[in-house]
C-alpha cells in the first residue's frame, strides 16, 4: 500500500523552469477581484487579457490533455497543472465540458475545428443543459431543435450557464426526437453569436454574476453541428457530466486552510478562540474530514488506474467535498463572531469578506453538477442496486 506519486525525473527541470519564467513574464494583471470557486470575470478587458494569456500559453506549447488529440506527456501535464494552479489566474476559459463529448462522439472535422481554439482561448464555451423546469430531472428538458432541410431550428430557455455572457459557443442539449425522456435528446454545437441567442446575466445570492439565462428564439444550427447522432445527446451528456462531477469535488485536500489563523485572530469569551475547547473540538473534526477527503482521493485514483471504479465513487466524493466546504465556511463565520456578518466593502470585514463570499458560494456546490440529493439517488440506485425512483405522470 502506498500513496507515492512517481517523482519527476531530472530531465523535467528545464521544462519547469521555462514554464515558471513564462508564467512570470505573461501572467495577466486583472481588474477583477478573484474569489473562491468557478467565477467569471466582470470586465471585457479582463476577458481579453485572459484570452491573450491562454493563447500565449498554448502557442508556447503548454496544452492540457483534455484539449489535445495527440498523446501528452503525463509528467509535463502534472507540471503544467501544478504551476498554472499556483499562478492564481484562470488558465481554462469558460466551461470546456464539451471537450470530452467531442473527443468521444465528435467528427474528425469537429475535433479539428473546435478543440485547438478551445485550448487557445479563441473559443470560449458555455454549457446549455439546465432549464427552469428541468434541473435535477434534466431528461425532461423542453428546448426543441426541429429539423428543416439541412438545419435545425432551436427554441427554448436555458439557465445556469457559466461564462455564457462571454461565450463564443454553447454545448447545447435539445429535444429532436418525438419521444419523451432521454432518448429524444441530441447534443449540438451552438454559435452563441447567432441571431436569436439572447444571454441575460443572472445575479446570484453571492451578489456576483457567474451564471446566465440563455433564451433561444428560432436559432439556426447547421446539421453538421450535431455531436454524434440524433438521439445520442443524453449519452454524450452523461459522459461529460461524470467528468464534471469528479471535477467539482476535485479540489485540494486543504479545504480547512486558514481556519487556525481565524481561530487565533478572533476572540471568544474573553480569550483567543483557538483556546476555547468547543472551537478546538470542531476544528479537529473538520480537519479530520478534510484529511479523509485526501485519502478518498488516493483510493479513487488507485481504483481509476485499475479500472475498478464503483458507481458511488464520483457522487460520494462530490457530497463529501461540497458539504465539508459548506461547514468549513459556516464555522469560519462563527469564529468571527459578529464580525462574521461583515462583508466585502465594510471597513471591519476580515480579509475583505473573503469567508463571507465563500460561505455564500458554498451553496452553489451542494446544488450544481447534480444536487447532493440526486447524488444520493445515484449512490443508492447505481451503487447499491436499489430500485429506481418511479416517474410521476406528466
Amino acid at each position: 500500500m502506498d500513496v507515492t506519486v512517481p517523482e519527476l525525473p531530472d530531465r523535467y527541470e528545464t521544462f519547469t523552469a521555462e514554464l515558471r519564467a513564462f508564467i512570470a513574464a505573461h501572467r495577466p494583471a486583472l481588474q477583477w477581484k478573484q474569489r473562491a470557486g468557478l467565477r467569471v470575470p466582470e470586465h471585457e478587458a479582463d476577458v481579453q487579457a485572459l484570452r491573450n494569456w491562454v493563447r500565449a500559453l498554448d502557442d508556447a506549447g503548454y496544452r492540457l490533455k483534455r484539449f489535445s488529440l495527440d498523446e501528452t506527456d503525463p509528467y509535463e501535464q502534472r507540471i503544467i497543472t501544478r504551476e498554472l494552479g499556483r499562478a492564481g489566474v484562470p488558465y481554462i476559459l469558460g466551461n470546456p465540458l464539451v471537450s470530452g463529448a467531442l473527443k468521444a462522439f465528435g467528427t474528425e472535422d469537429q475535433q479539428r475545428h473546435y478543440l485547438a481554439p478551445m485550448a487557445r482561448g479563441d473559443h470560449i464555451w458555455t454549457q446549455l443543459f439546465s432549464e427552469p423546469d428541468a434541473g435535477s430531472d434534466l431528461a425532461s428538458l423542453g428546448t426543441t431543435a426541429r429539423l428543416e432541410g439541412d438545419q435545425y431550428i432551436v427554441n427554448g430557455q436555458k439557465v445556469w450557464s457559466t461564462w455564457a455572457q462571454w461565450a463564443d459557443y454553447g454545448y447545447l442539449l435539445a429535444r429532436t426526437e418525438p419521444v419523451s425522456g432521454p432518448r429524444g435528446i441530441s447534443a449540438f454545437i451552438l454559435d452563441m453569436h447567432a441571431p436569436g441567442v439572447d444571454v441575460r446575466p443572472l445575479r446570484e445570492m453571492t451578489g456576483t454574476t457567474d451564471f446566465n439565462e440563455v433564451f433561444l428564439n428560432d436559432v439556426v444550427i447547421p446539421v453538421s453541428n450535431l455531436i454524434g447522432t440524433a438521439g445520442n445527446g443524453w449519452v454524450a451528456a452523461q459522459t461529460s457530466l461524470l467528468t464534471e462531477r469528479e471535477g467539482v469535488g476535485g479540489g485540494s485536500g486543504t479545504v480547512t486552510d486558514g481556519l487556525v489563523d481565524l481561530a487565533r485572530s478572533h476572540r471568544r469569551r474573553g480569550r483567543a478562540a483557538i483556546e476555547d475547547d468547543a472551537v478546538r473540538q470542531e476544528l479537529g473534526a473538520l480537519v479530520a474530514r478534510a484529511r479523509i477527503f485526501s485519502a478518498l482521493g488516493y483510493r479513487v485514483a488507485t481504483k481509476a488506474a485499475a479500472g475498478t471504479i464503483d458507481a458511488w465513487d464520483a457522487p460520494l466524493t462530490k457530497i463529501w467535498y461540497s458539504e465539508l466546504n459548506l461547514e468549513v465556511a459556516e464555522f469560519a463565520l462563527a469564529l468571527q463572531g459578529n464580525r462574521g456578518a461583515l462583508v466585502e466593502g465594510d471597513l471591519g470585514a476580515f480579509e475583505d469578506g473573503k469567508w463571507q463570499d465563500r460561505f455564500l458560494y458554498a451553496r452553489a456546490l451542494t446544488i450544481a453538477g447534480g444536487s447532493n440529493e440526486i447524488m444520493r439517488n445515484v449512490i443508492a440506485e447505481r451503487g447499491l442496486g436499489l430500485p429506481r425512483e418511479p416517474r410521476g405522470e406528466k
Partner: protein
Amino acid sequence: MEFAFSEDQDLLRSSTRRFLDDRDALRELRSTLEAPEVVDRHLWQKGGELGWTSMLIPPDHGGGSVSTQPLVDLVVLGEELGRVLHPGPFVPTNVVADVITRHGTEAQRAEWLSGLAQGSVLAAWCASADGSIEMGECGVALTETPEGSALNGVARFVHGATVADVLLVLATTQTGAAYFLVPTTSPGLSLRTQGTLDLTRRFAEVTFNQVPVALDQMLTGPAIAVHQRAVDVATVLQSAEAVGAADHLFDATVAYLSVRTQFGRTIASFQAIKHRLANLLVVREGMRAATHFAALALSDGFDDAPAAVSTAGSYVPDGFARICGESLQLHGGIGFTWEHDVHLFVRRAFTNKGLYGDPGWHRERLCAIEAVA
C-alpha cells in the same frame, strides 16, 4: 500510487475469512453472550497460526508479516475479525507484542514474544483507572517495601485480562511513569469482570494488592513514548475492526431492506430509506479511507502519522456508532429483539467510543498538530 491491499494481503484476508465463516463465528459468539468468558484459548491459538498476532513480532522470535507493512497486514485481519465481532484480544495482544518488540529487554523478548506470536500467550493492557488513555488517570503505583518493590492500585476496562497470561501495566513511580510486564499468575493480583454494554468482549477491573515486581519487568524507553505508540497502534487496529463490522452490518441492512416489504413494495425502494443508506455508505467509505491511510502512515513512519492516526480516531468511532444506530432503526421492530444481531453491533460501537482515546481526545490532538503546523 497503489492505495489498496496487495494480492498477498487479499490471500491473508481470505484465509481468515474462511476460518471464521466455516465456524459461523458470529453464531458461535451468540452462545457465549452471557457466559463469564467469551474467548476460547484453543481457537485463539488457531488464529495465531493464521497470523493474527505475529505481524508486529520479528522473525527471530517466531513472528513474521505478509508485507513490509505489518500494520497494514493487521488492518486486513482486524477488518475480518470485526465482521464477526470477534471477542478475542486482537487489539491488546498486538499492542503488547509491538511494545515488547520495540521496548522490551532481550530477556523480555525471549520470554514473551514467541508465545504471543503463536497465540499460546495472551496479553492485556492496563492503561488507567478509568479506561481512558490519559496518563494522569493511571491508578497503579509502584511502592517500595522492605520486602522489595510492589504494585498497588487498580486498572479498569482492561480488555482480555480475564484470559491474559501477561499484563502490560502503566504505573507511577517515584521517578515518573513506567511500564511493567506482569504475569497474571503474580500473587496479589485479582480480577473482577465488569458488566458492560458490550456483550461480545470481556473487560476487567484489575486490582493490584502488593503485587511483587522486579526491575527486570520494566520496559526500556520513556513511558510516554511507549504509551503513545500503544495508543496509536490500538487506534488503528480498533478502527480496522470497526470498518469490518460496519461493512458487515451495512451489507446486511441493505439486504434486509431489499426483501422487507410494506405498502406493497420493498422498503429499500423508498427514497427516505435510500438516502439514509447513501449517507451511511459515505460514512463507511470515509471510515475505510481514514483507517487505511492511518495504517500506512504509521507503518511507514510518515511525518503526519500522528495526525493520520487521530483522523481515524476522530472519525471512525462516531461513524461506526452512527452506522450501527441507524441500521438498528432501519431494521424496525426486529432490530429491537435479543435474537437479532444488530444490538450486538450497537453495544460494541458505543463501548468503543471510550476506548483507546475517545474521538474528542483525537480531535484535540489534531487541533494541536494543526496549530503548530
